[in-house]
């Protein structure tokens, strides 16, 4: 029969795959309609430049965001997640090295 443990996503499931997770049950939807601040605009500018140079697509950006471990994901702001994903993707592609980012 059904295994109740299936309700809780295993750690190997990506952060976006949270349907049915008890921690989000009946939680109000967070509505943050505020326009991006200076930091968010800079991150988005970086994303646009990398897209123009064909080093990054929004689909890759999304994958990088979902790959952030859940604890980090929920402690980062919206554009901090973008920057974390962009950084990981540029390292993954060999565009920059970790040493260069220190």
């Amino acid at each position, binding site marked *: 029969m059904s*295994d109740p443990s299936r*309700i809780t*996503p*295993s750690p190997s499931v*990506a952060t976006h*795959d949270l349907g*049915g997770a008890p921690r989000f049950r009946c939680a109000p939807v967070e509505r943050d309609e505020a326009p991006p601040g200076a930091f968010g605009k800079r991150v988005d500018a970086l994303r646009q430049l990398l897209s123009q140079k064909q080093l990054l*697509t929004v*689909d*890759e950006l999304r994958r990088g965001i979902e790959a952030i471990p859940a604890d980090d994901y929920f402690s980062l702001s919206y554009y901090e997640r973008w920057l974390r994903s962009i950084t990981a993707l540029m390292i993954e592609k060999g565009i920059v090295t970790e040493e260069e980012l220190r």
Partner: protein
Amino acid sequence: MTAPGDAGFAPGSIVRVRNDWPERSGPCHVRTPHYLRGRSGTVQRLLGRFPNPEDLAFGRPAPSRALYHVLFEQPPVWQEGRPGDELLVEVFEHWLEPAGAESRAATGAAS
């Protein structure tokens, strides 16, 4: 890459979501919700063909795949709800396999 599996499911077809967990074998991007893996449902309609997001997420060439609305009984999925409660989810064809009518009764017995 797995075979495209262009079976072309007609509305009303009973299908089973592959009980597959690519997350366990390395980086991937999967749109099929974890809670549906191994579960059976009924195809409602073809939504169209779209570039496979599993490839797009890695900047790879992304052949178009058929996307369906598939209807599931909700109570067996989350062990809650009333008979007749339903879940309607978009699932790509390469995640679906034909399931006989007899498996419909076993919808809640996955895994």
